[in-house]
């Protein structure tokens, strides 16, 4: 086995209670994480597709990467895969991921991943300590707990003598000071809510796809890992040298480069400094806190507060609830409404309301969409006392409002809860309004039931990358933070020409194309072959480095950075340097990107087996028919690079379809179907995938 792997994947059948192993070696060619997960899914159930997400045949696959459990910067995430009940109109084979220390403990316990199949006839949780695997009864108090209580209770049960701050002796004379790493669904997941998330720690969510609901459908409350073993490293000296070399790309906490520019202000979220992810603890009323990191992350974008609320929640995990206006304004320096609730109280209640969402196990990103839709329907008189949906919410913006909202959805209370637990897309469908509300943009479910994130007509790599996938791309570092948010700061550290040049140079193997990040509407812009290459690069990077490598989408890629003198980032040099040191392989960045292409192609083959066709890979009508609100990006306008918003533009259907045709051809797919050809699949070593597709009449 190459370094970085433990050599075995845990396989648990909850129907039969059988525990077995899959040798990792069989799947090493797919790298790790998402790559191995997709290959395992295809091998185990691919030929049985399509079936429903709540069918016991569905799998929960949670894969680590060769980097998990190592100090590879920003590689601490856990990839979760399976059919996603939240996705629409088909419950696509989806992925979500969460940070923390779950995959690290999985690796230290001796496992490269876990595959859960079947469904238990009564509630259980899986407890793994090194090579000891137990399927434990969850009916004795754990089932029914919220995500926080469940994790802590399972930790206590797993290591009864564990006292924080002391060594605990496990079996075979092994010791640890660490507590078990648990991931759990909440009451929402137990009730098979399509908004059900998986929670690890107080605020780290696998929020997308509804995997909490899949846990519930399997009567699976949680999975716990604790290990005392090691991750083997092929070239330890090279790995250590690489880690110290990487320091130049980090925020220097004692002496930040150009501190007068990057400290605070518009750069606080993207400068790489600690703690920027929690937007509910800022300003003069800030509660003392620790900047907190996932395993191996040199940034620490999370916080743990002296009050213990909103611990480890970031971004959307701190944004869904906003009590008394106390949410984001503090972090962004906005002035509070003088007539509103006192800021300190408002912020505290906001944090606690968001915590309720985490405790119920509701996925933040889609709860946000569902809440917005509910509010719109209240305004339209569809929801309210004596209305079509007879339910009255407390006053908007109050703590009671959020508490009622989250409880109603999580526990499926009343007519509103029954509808909303199905997610906004199916809620709209059941009300007979889906087509109307999504087409009009009232309900902006832009990519397969997941809500619009950034403007699809301007930040097109995000939009294209999402519809060519299975859900919101959700990868800020691809171009959004470094380019959009740099420009949005009002004081970009690179002008558009400089930024686009450095960016393109990092995007191997397309580095010779100067216009990869041109977001204009000209010949090198959003419909161009350059954009074909950029989106291919994004998808390949997503599948290999983010997916197979377990990278954080807030940290990687790093094409430019404010932390170096020449503003060049660590990409594309860092990724293969670290990977080769850990595994002992000797491949180039481009080699690994081609593996990303292979994984992307396999995912698309699975979607084809589920019924994906080219005509599904489109945006809702509003994206084409309504003028864009704009989003600042680098663009070539009148032959010159500049930062511009693109406000008022409309995405052109015919041009998008033409762009798609070129994209499919570029990737080796049949442009009529968007599915890979036999030639492409066999060239990638996936003949059996081609055979399966052909047998089902799905080959491209």
């Amino acid at each position: 086995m190459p370094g970085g792997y433990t050599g075995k994947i845990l396989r648990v059948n909850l129907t039969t209670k059988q525990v077995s192993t899959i040798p990792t070696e069989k799947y090493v060619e797919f790298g790790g994480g998402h790559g191995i997960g997709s290959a395992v899914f295809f091998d185990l159930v691919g030929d049985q597709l399509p079936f429903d997400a709540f069918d016991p045949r569905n799998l929960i696959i949670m894969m680590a990467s060769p980097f998990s459990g190592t100090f590879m910067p920003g590689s601490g995430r856990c990839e979760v895969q399976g059919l996603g009940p939240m996705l629409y109109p088909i419950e696509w084979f989806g992925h979500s991921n969460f940070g923390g220390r779950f995959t690290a403990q999985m690796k230290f316990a001796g496992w490269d991943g876990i595959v859960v199949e079947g469904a238990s006839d009564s509630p259980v949780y899986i407890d793994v300590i090194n090579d000891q695997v137990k399927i434990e009864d969850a009916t004795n108090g754990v089932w029914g707990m919220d995500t926080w209580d469940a994790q802590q209770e399972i930790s206590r049960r797993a290591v009864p003598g564990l006292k924080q701050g002391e060594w605990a002796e496990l079996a075979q004379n092994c010791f640890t000071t660490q507590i078990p790493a648990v991931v759990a669904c909440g009451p929402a997941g137990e009730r098979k809510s399509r908004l059900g998330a998986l929670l690890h720690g107080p605020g780290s969510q696998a929020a997308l796809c509804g995997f909490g609901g899949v846990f519930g459908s399997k009567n699976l409350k949680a999975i716990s890992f604790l290990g005392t073993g090691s991750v083997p490293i092929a070239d330890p000296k090279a790995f250590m040298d690489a880690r110290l070399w990487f320091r130049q790309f980090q925020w220097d906490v004692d002496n930040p480069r150009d501190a007068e520019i990057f400290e605070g202000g518009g750069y606080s979220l993207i400068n790489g400094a600690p703690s920027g992810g929690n937007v509910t603890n800022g300003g003069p009323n800030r509660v003392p806190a620790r900047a907190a990191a996932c395993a191996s992350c040199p940034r620490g974008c999370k916080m743990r507060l002296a009050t213990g609320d909103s611990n480890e929640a970031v971004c959307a995990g701190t944004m869904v609830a906003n009590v008394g206006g106390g949410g984001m304004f503090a972090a962004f320096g906005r002035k509070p409404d003088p007539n509103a609730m006192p800021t300190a109280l408002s912020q505290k209640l906001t944090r606690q309301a968001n915590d309720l969402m985490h405790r119920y196990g509701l996925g933040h990103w889609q709860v946000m969409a569902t809440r917005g839709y509910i509010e719109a329907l209240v305004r339209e008189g569809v929801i309210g006392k004596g209305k079509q949906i007879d339910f009255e919410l407390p006053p908007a913006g109050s703590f009671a409002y959020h508490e009622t909202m989250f409880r109603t959805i999580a526990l499926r209370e009343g007519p509103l809860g029954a509808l909303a637990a199905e997610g906004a897309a199916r809620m709209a469908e059941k009300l007979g309004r889906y087509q109307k509300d999504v087409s009009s943009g009232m309900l902006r479910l832009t990519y397969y039931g997941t809500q619009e994130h950034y403007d699809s007509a301007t930040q097109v790599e995000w939009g294209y990358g999402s519809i060519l996938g299975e859900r919101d791309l959700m990868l800020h570092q691809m171009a959004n933070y470094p380019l959009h948010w740099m420009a949005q700061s009002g004081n970009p550290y690179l002008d558009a020409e400089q930024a686009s040049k450095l960016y393109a140079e990092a995007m191997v193997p397309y580095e010779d194309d100067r216009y990869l990040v041109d977001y204009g509407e000209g010949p090198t812009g959003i419909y161009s072959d350059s954009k074909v290459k950029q989106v291919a690069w994004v998808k390949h990077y997503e599948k290999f480095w983010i997916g197979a490598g377990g990278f954080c989408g807030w940290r990687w890629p790093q094409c430019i950075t404010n932390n170096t003198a020449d503003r060049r980032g660590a990409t594309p040099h860092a990724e293969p340097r670290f990977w080769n040191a850990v595994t002992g392989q000797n491949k180039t960045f481009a080699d690994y990107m081609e593996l990303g292409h292979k994984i992307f192609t396999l995912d698309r083959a699975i979607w084809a087996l589920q019924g994906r066709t080219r005509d599904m890979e489109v945006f809702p009508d509003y994206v084409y028919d309504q003028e864009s609100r704009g989003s600042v990006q680098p663009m070539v306008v009148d032959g010159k690079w500049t930062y511009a918003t693109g406000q008022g533009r409309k995405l052109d259907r015919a041009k998008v379809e033409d762009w798609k045709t070129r994209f499919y051809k570029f990737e080796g797919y049949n442009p009529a179907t968007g599915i890979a050809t036999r030639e492409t699949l066999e060239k990638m070593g996936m003949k059996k995938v081609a055979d399966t597709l052909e047998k089902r009449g799905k080959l491209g």
Partner: protein
Amino acid sequence: MSGGKKTDSTETAAKKKFTRRDFLVTGGTVVAVDALIATTPAAAVAASPAPPPEKVQAYPASKGYLVYDSKKCIGCTTCMLSCSLTHYGVQSLSLARIQIIQDSFGKFPTDLEMAPCRQCKYPPCVQSCPVQACFVDEANGNVRRIDTDKCIGCKTCLKMCPQQPHRTVWNHEIKKSTKCDLCLETPYWNEKGGIGGKQACVESCPMKAIKFVSEMPDQKETDGYNVNLRNEHWLKLGLVDDSRIVPPGSRSMGGGAPKAKMQAPKAKA
């Protein structure tokens, strides 16, 4: 997997006065260890800077120490993994000679504890080792070390360390005790360690929350080791309410100016 010096325990034991079997299996365990506990002022070492009882042997002070700032630590565990990598060539939390212990559900600042070896003035691990495997390395700046060739795996040093968690670390792979050597013996690192050299945890910590110092920290509880390493740039993050700029003359282990006030959370009972 062990560090640079891998030695078969049977072969090693045959060269020593004591063997692990002699010490543990012959029934000497309880008597021997308890006797050591009874005669070693571990509690006094931990709790008081007062001079030791006469019967406690004086040791030359270490010429190097690790101090740390537990409020600055983000819990990424890079220090632990650097430690295990440079010493053993693998990444492991259990083998790391510095421990970071944290609870995601906890409240700052008690949600996290940093636990490196203190290189104690009166080191109970050295005092209590029945085979002198734990020793003061006078050739290398008086660093308190464990010679795993000599160690018989009796775990006395684990029990005698007064800190919680104990800073001596059990290596379950070679069944020996280990401890921080300030990176004197790091076969998997290209840098020179020890006094005058570099330490893997110090070099790799992205928060610069661990620092090598030559001056012996205050031995009273953990006060002297858990210091303020934050400067004005950390203050601008607005995370802590006590990272104030301190009056001139105040002492800080932190680099950079202006210096910030030292922090000294109490050690666990």
